[in-house]
Each structure stands twice: as C-alpha cells, then as structure tokens.
C-alpha cells in the first residue's frame, strides 16, 4: 500500500469539494433538512404517543444515525460515479494503483464527506430540539462505526455493479438504501415487521444497531449482544463486498467495461 497514492486520490476529491461552494452546500444541506424535519416529527410523537414518552430524542437520534449511513453509502458511490461522469475512469485505472489503495482512499474520503454533512446537523439538534445524540455515550462510537462499515459495504457492492455493468447500474446506486430501509427497523421495533420480513431483517446489521440505539435511549441499558451481532454481520458483508469488487474488476477486464466506461 502506498500512502502517497492513497493521498493522491483523496486529494482529487478534496479539491473537487473545496473548489465548489454548491458541493459543500449540498453535503450540508440534506442532512440538516432531514434532521430538522425529523426533529419536529419527533417532538410531535413524543407528546402524542406513550412509546416515545420517555425518550424524546429516539426518533431524531435514529434519523441522525440513518442519515450517517445513507451519506456514507451514497458518498462512496458518488466518488465512483464522479470518475465516470468526468470520463476520468480510464486515467484512474491505468494509474499504478492497487485495488486496495483505491478502496482505502475512497473509504477515507467517504467518511470525511459524511462528517462534513453530519456534524452541522448534529450541532443543530441541541439548540433546536434540546437533544444531544451524545446521550448514547461511548456506545455512540460503536454504533457509528458499525453504520460506517455497513455504508461502505453497500458502497463497495454498488461500485462492483458499476464496474461490472457500467453506468447503467447508476440507478441502483441511488436506490439501495431505500430498498434496505424498511428491513433496517430504523424508526420502529423489529416486531412491527411481518414474520417473513423479520427473518430478512435479522441477517442485516442495521436492525441490531437501531434496536440498540432505542434500547439505550428508552431502557437506559446496554445490550452488548446487539453491538456484537452488528459487527459480526458487518464483517461478513464487508468481506463479501471486497471479494465481489475484485471479482467485478476482473470481470470488467474480461468484458471490456473499463475501456468504455462513461460512454
């Protein structure tokens, strides 16, 4: 692994973000709107339902966590799509970069992109709604880490599709998160889902993460098993995504997708 090359690819996206005010605004705008909207919804539910009576910030906290996941995943895809849109894809893949270096650089860049959007949104929640996500304590870090890994995993899976099938896979890139969201049990307990859907939900790390967030905020207890399960599933999916990315890269070299990308 070459840190210089990893930094070089990071720099390409860093320049892109810092050169354009609309791009920075775009990163900050959606999380802020999302959090503000869910803040008001959360306030409403907190005063009109018994379930959320004891934890005003449950929905809002879950909204912030989900937004972090969404931003990480979309952010990773965007980095890949930027290369296709700018017709720079070939230049990138003829540079002497190992696949591991490309992925590492994109993983770091995606984190920074997500944090640029999320930090202002988190800071807003306290003065606007009197809620601090930091109430989750040290476990907030593990929940964020788990979501980050899953977001990156989804990003790598979608990028594998882009490599293998080309730009026509772009629409899938935008819809992945929406497909998984119902099974993630972000705003409701898993018992809300029909039994068949529950079986699907249990093989996703999301359900453990959001169940645990609710558990900490509502019951004021910590169930380590939820965090552990989330990491186990994450490790499995992350490993599979890396394998699939390498497979797609080789398949693209056989099929010729790397040459025609962007056309």
């Amino acid at each position, binding site marked *: 692994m070459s840190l210089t090359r990893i930094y070089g690819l990071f720099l390409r996206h860093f320049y892109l973000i810092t050169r354009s005010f609309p791009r920075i605004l775009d990163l900050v705008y959606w999380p802020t709107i999302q959090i503000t909207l869910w803040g008001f919804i959360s306030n409403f539910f907190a005063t009109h339902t018994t379930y959320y009576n004891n934890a005003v910030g449950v929905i809002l906290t879950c909204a912030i966590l989900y937004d972090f996941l969404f931003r990480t995943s979309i952010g990773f895809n965007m980095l890949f799509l930027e290369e296709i849109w700018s017709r720079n894809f070939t*230049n990138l893949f003829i*540079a002497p970069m190992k696949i591991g270096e490309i992925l590492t650089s994109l993983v770091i860049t995606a984190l920074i992109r997500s944090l640029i959007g999320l930090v202002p949104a988190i800071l807003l929640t306290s003065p606007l709604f009197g809620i601090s996500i930091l109430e989750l304590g040290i476990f907030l870090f593990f929940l964020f880490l788990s979501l980050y890994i899953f977001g990156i995993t989804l990003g790598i899976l979608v990028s594998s599709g882009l490599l293998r099938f080309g730009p026509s896979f772009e629409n899938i890139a935008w819809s992945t998160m929406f497909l998984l969201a119902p099974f993630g049990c972000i705003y409701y307990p898993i018992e809300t889902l029909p039994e068949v859907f529950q079986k699907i939900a249990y093989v996703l790390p999301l359900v453990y993460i959001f169940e645990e967030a609710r558990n900490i905020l509502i019951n004021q207890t910590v169930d380590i098993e939820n965090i552990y399960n989330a990491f186990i599933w994450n490790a499995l999916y992350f490993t599979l995504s890396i394998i699939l990315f390498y497979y797609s890269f080789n398949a693209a070299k056989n099929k010729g997708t790397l040459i025609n990308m962007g056309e």
Partner: protein
Amino acid sequence: MKNLIEVKNIKKNYGKKEAVKGISFNVQENEILGLLGPNGSGKTTTIGMLLGLLKPTSGQIFIDNLKLENHRIEILEMINFISPYVELPKKLTVKQNLNVYAKLYKVQNIEERIEYLSEKLRIEELLDSITGELSSGQKNRVSLAKALINEPRVLLLDEPTASLDPEVGDFVRTFLEEYKKEKKISVLLASHNMSEVTRLCKSVLMMKNGEIIDQGTPDDLVAKHGRTNLEEVFLKLSRSKNEFN
C-alpha cells in the same frame, strides 16, 4: 535496439466475437510505431490490453521484459496514455489535476516536474485555469502533460491530435518527435491521420478485422501497394477483402 513493448500472439474474444485474432509485434526503444486500421479493426482493444484494462483471451504482453500479467503495477508506473475520449476531472484546475496524477504516479519533485512540462507544452498560463473551461487544443496539451508526468518509457497514443486545429496538431506532433528523441521512449500511435503517421512513425501496422494485414515503413507500404501516399494504401487495404494475409 531493445524492445520495450513485446506483444506475442494476443487474442481477445468477446463471447464468440473475435476482436483481436492473435497479433504479434514489437516496439523498440526510441521508436514510434503506427497502428492503423478502420473503426472496429481492434486498435483500441489492443491498446486496452497493453494498458491492462483488458485481459487477453490468450497470448502474452511484455513491457521492458516484464510480463504484464504478473507485473501490472510496475508496468503501469512506466507507461502512460492519452486519448481524446478520456478526460481529466473538469472541475479541478490544471495544476490540481497534474498534482493529483503526480501523486498517483509517485513522482519525486512534483513542482519541478509540473514546471518543466508546463514550459515545454506551453501551459504555464493555464495552470490555475479550470480544466473543463479549456479549449480542445489546451485540453490536449494538458492531457499530454498528464501523460508525461511520470516520465513514461512507453507512451500509448490513441488519436492524440483528433479534433485539433492544424497549428495545435503540428505543435503536438513536433513536441512528440522531439520528446521521443530526447528521452528515447517507445510510442504506439493509433491514428486516422495518415500524414501524421507518415511524419512520426518509423514503421506501421495495418489492422483489419482484428488481424495485422500488412506492416512496414510508410514508404515501403506506399511502394509495395503502388500508391502515392499512405492514405491511399489505407483506403485500398480497408476496402479490400483479406487477400493481404
């Protein structure tokens, strides 16, 4: 002279379609080899295989005696590529783009290298410009600077002067001639501009339907086919059936 590029019987099939049918050729140090052929003849596929973007169905490629299949990264460090169909990130300034690629190629003394190329390619005044806002000629010179950022020993050019006005085209050709002479690099030039090929290339490969149907110096080919210039030879071979095999 040492062969920097050695291509041995490479084939590329897409399913049942044979895009390249077992071609072999060498490019020596300090040589520009022209790759000619009508659209769909297999030129881009051949270049794609040399760049490691495409995996040959069979056959072997050696760059500076290293087998591409086993030494992809080392080989990519010593080659580069330019094509009008591949662009640099449009929103970055020229200098930012060159800086990024200098890092990807682990160039030492980046500032010096950018300064040297900027002067040679007359892009000093463009360094702070947004790449996407440049004219075709300016973009072409910037792409050339990117292609030379790592001081490649092998340069692959796919229609490097397509869509350029005659003056810029001439500037690029003159630059390539001088740079090749100075650095003793090997160049594979795919082009549809026959006067360009005649001027720059020591020898030429004619491709059609994935095969090399003829090869030689531009003068030899013209004499062999009884024509007055390379364009006429190209037309004759392109329109003919494969009787030249």
